[in-house]
């Protein structure tokens, strides 16, 4: 028996099933909250911090990730205040400066309003979103790869021949990885990275329809919850 609660997201009063997260509810309803590490069907860890929203209680607002925030009766959420827009912009800027060789991340950056990148570009081939790790642990329970190390040294690895021993060849790690979708111009040479944004997700979208889902094909690159529809990965 599903219980429902009423939540207020950006002024819209929405009936949401108890136990669901604010992000899921918003996406379902058509409100665009950019996200990266969230994948429908997998656990949410709040790692990328892109889906932040303001949770307003007793007149005070707290910035928190909507993927880990469970809906509660009477909740008041704002997804696109100036404060949130700026914070999200800065986080997206960090991501694209780290890994410009990913169409998904380039698109997210543009969607979050990044017009200029103020840090030197790097050429990482992993942003540690953890999608592959969670998919491997939660879909077929193979546990063939995982996070290793800490802080700056944290990375995804398949140590000790685990690939041969445990991998079930389900291919989800590859399918879900935001890095495996390349920009239309091909991989950028190290030292020659730049901010792309030439693809379908034009800058206009962020300005014309800042907080509604416009089926912008942005989501195609990283299985945006809305774009993937109700097709859960399981």
């Amino acid at each position, binding site marked *: 028996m599903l219980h429902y609660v009423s939540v207020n997201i950006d002024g819209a009063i929405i009936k949401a099933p108890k136990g669901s997260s604010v992000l899921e509810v918003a996406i379902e309803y058509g409100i665009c909250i950019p996200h990266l590490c969230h994948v429908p069907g997998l656990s949410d860890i709040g790692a990328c911090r892109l889906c932040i929203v303001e949770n307003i209680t007793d007149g005070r607002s707290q910035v928190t990730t909507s993927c880990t925030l469970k809906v509660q009766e009477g909740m008041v959420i704002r997804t696109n205040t100036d404060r949130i827009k700026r914070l999200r912009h800065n986080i997206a800027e960090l991501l694209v400066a780290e890994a410009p060789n990913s169409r998904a991340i380039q698109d997210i950056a543009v969607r979050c309003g990044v017009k200029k990148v103020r840090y030197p570009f790097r050429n990482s081939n992993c942003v540690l979103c953890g999608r592959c790790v969670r998919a491997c642990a939660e879909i077929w329970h193979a546990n063939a790869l*995982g996070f290793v190390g800490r802080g700056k040294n944290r990375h995804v690895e398949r140590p000790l021949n685990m690939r041969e021993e445990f991998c079930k060849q389900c291919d989800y790690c590859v399918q879900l990885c935001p890095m495996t979708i390349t920009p239309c111009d091909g991989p950028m040479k190290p030292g020659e990275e730049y901010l792309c944004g030439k693809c379908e997700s034009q800058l206009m979208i962020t300005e014309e329809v800042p907080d509604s889902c416009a089926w912008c094909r942005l989501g195609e690159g990283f299985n945006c919850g809305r774009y993937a529809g109700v097709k859960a990965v399981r």
Partner: protein
Amino acid sequence: MNLSKLESILKGRNSQPHQLIEVLQDVQESYGYIPEEAMREISKTLGVPLIEVYRVASFYKAFKLKPTGKYVITICNGTACHVRGAQLLLDQAMGQLGIKPGDVTDDGMFSIEHVNCLGACALGPIASGNGSFLHHMTPAKLRKFIETIRHEETEEVNNAKASHERRPGGHRETASPR
């Protein structure tokens, strides 16, 4: 690898995944590092996926995935020691031994650890050799300390060689009398 120590560590801990860190502590103490075989046994016995064991072993500083040197020179880089010149000690150790923190010298004798605080702040800068604290260290004192160990080790090796060669019927490379 001597598995009997591992067996006694794992005894009574079947299917207790929350004991993972305690078990790894015991393995680290017994073997000086976490061997791969140990990780596999732990994974099976505690019921934790192997990647989790590896992950925990690689996350915490206490666990080494490679054997350490015979003498571990630990240099404290806590704030109080830092302000008193701990960086000088680290530079000294790295320069004298030719290795970086986490590595072992080619002869397996020394390795350097760089930790965040040993908790004896009023006595800094602190270095420790295999757990025994050396306080108010200076680069010169550290140089002497390392040289002394080297000297003692070389003497020991020479003495062992000499006594081996003096033994009747002992193997001799050359025909020259001793």
